[in-house]
């Protein structure tokens, strides 16, 4: 794994505009950065990222199976009691999932260490599946990269295949905060994939979803919603006014409610307890667990629900290195052994490994200046070097 100063294409902003990538800069700050890229060997991708991702996702599914049968686990994850039946029922029906992203600390040496599983509302999907792919094709066409260079990125075609395989009536409603550009972009991309898979799609702002007198979630035409993709985390949906209506409704969700078990930092403590010697898992404990003392003076404390690095506290040799502000934490925390992100020229890449359906499908890298990857991180493309 190398960080290569490959140089940005002078016209990449026009390429972005032509391909619907309108959120490459957020709040005036750049988000997509192709001035450099990360190069991997095929062996690094297949042995260090892809294979562990498949194994960890399978372990996660085993954990969900265990969690739905054990109220102590659901309680430890602070999933509200009124949501347990929806979580259990969705798993017992085997409601299909669409996607998720495992985030690893990995720098090309030693096993990748799982930092968290964004199993419910991961973004950076369009950038991975489309714009990063176009970047590679463009650099091949321009001769910047030699023929035979590749990319670990089948995200786009796997998404379409997954949508095509969904059971149901062929309809799909998609919802998010319509006014949030990155969310709207991600949902528009998924709608694009779903349409290519033949689904009849309709976008709804979150506020447009109604609940009719029969307990059915309905769209803005009052037509019952058979399947709803929501870029809105389950812990918020459960806390909303409609949160108690989910189990009784006939609507099927993407991600399904059982993903609430995985999109929770408590998962990391449970996985470690299941497989304490797994090379890709870091020792992790719930706050208050006496065993957390074994982590010593260096650890990372994460709220169970936190996203985008919010409210994460990093302690090294009893010194607080970083403490990110944010709205999370009242629900409790885990403590995870410190696995610093690798340092490439003073930049810290976080390796995101996409799961589509139940299969590893590709990779994205978000790069930060500091040790925690927040929503200010830059998206940096990658390639697999030609042999």
């Amino acid at each position, binding site marked *: 794994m190398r960080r290569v100063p490959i140089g940005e294409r002078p016209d990449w902003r026009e390429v972005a505009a032509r391909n619907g990538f309108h959120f490459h800069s957020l709040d005036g700050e750049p988000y997509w950065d192709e001035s450099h890229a990360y190069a991997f060997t095929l062996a690094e991708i297949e042995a260090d990222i892809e294979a562990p991702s498949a194994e960890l996702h399978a372990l996660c599914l085993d954990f969900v199976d265990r969690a739905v049968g054990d109220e102590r686990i659901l309680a430890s994850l602070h999933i509200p009691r009124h949501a347990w039946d929806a979580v259990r029922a969705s798993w017992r029906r085997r409601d299909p999932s669409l996607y998720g992203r495992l985030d690893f600390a990995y720098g090309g040496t030693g096993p990748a260490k799982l930092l968290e599983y964004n199993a419910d509302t991961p973004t950076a999907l369009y950038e991975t599946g489309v714009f990063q792919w176009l970047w590679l094709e463009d650099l091949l066409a321009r001769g910047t990269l030699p023929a035979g260079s590749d990319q670990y990125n089948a995200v786009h075609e796997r998404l379409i295949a997954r949508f095509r395989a969904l059971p149901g009536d062929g309809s799909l409603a998609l919802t998010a905060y319509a006014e949030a550009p990155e969310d709207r972009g991600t949902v528009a991309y998924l709608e694009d994939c779903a349409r290519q898979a033949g689904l009849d799609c309709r976008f709804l702002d979150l506020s447009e979803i109604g609940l*009719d007198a029969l307990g059915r979630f309905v769209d803005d035409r009052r037509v019952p919603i058979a399947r709803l993709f929501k870029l809105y985390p389950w812990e*918020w949906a459960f806390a909303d006014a409609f949160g108690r209506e989910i189990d009784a409704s006939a609507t099927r969700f993407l991600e399904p409610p059982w993903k609430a078990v995985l999109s929770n930092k408590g998962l990391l403590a449970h996985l470690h307890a299941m497989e304490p010697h797994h090379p890709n898992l870091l020792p992790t404990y719930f706050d208050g667990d006496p065993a957390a003392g074994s982590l010593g003076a260096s650890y990372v404390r994460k709220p169970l629900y936190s996203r985008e690095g919010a409210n994460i506290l990093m302690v090294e040799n009893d010194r607080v290195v970083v403490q990110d502000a944010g709205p999370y934490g009242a629900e409790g925390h885990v403590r995870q052994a410190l696995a610093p992100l690798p340092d490439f020229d003073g930049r810290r890449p976080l390796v995101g490994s996409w799961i589509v359906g139940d299969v590893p499908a590709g990779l994205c890298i978000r790069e930060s200046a500091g040790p925690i990857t927040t929503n200010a991180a830059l998206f940096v493309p990658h390639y697999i070097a030609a042999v």
Partner: protein
Amino acid sequence: MSSQDRKDGTGGTGGFKRSEAVTLVLLTGAGAAAVGLARIDPSQQMEDIRIYPNAEACIAGRVRTAVDCRIEDDVARTVAAARAPIYRSRAECEAQHGLDACEARGVVAAPEAGTLYVPRMVAYFVGATAAQKLDPQPLFPTAGVVYGVRAVAQPAYRTTWGCPVTPTTDGGSVARVPVATARPPLLNGFGATGRSICGDESSASHHGGGG
């Protein structure tokens, strides 16, 4: 868009690890418009309702007390004032509700300046029994539609949320309608938690994706 040099291989496994082709239909141009599929749920429950043009007709029906009739009529008119469907022109409104069925209500400021129109309430409905706990709801007329020489049957009325209501007998006051027609849907049940967590009700700083 398709991947070039597919046959070169990576030298490792002989196959590429990226998508063979990446195509977009929606984001890159004029995507096909979605076609709505209405679905009918035959198992849905029904509600019996009474339809009255005004409180006097209700009182004359001798099913409800005069006091109840007047209160219900008032409630329905208040709901109509707040929730009647809004149209950007009289023609649009009359196309849905019939000639002379609409009145001006409010104006839109520049740059899309213009008068707004709403249909006039012509009746209201209540539950057949108090036990149904149905709130009185206004009803608006529907425009008759004629295709060629054949008139196509239209519902007599629509609710504020667009559901059709037709009495079981012509001009009658009795109807049986699906529950979703008798009771307005609840809205705004999702989204509040994300806004309150982010402490910002108005700006686009909150978002539900991420991680």
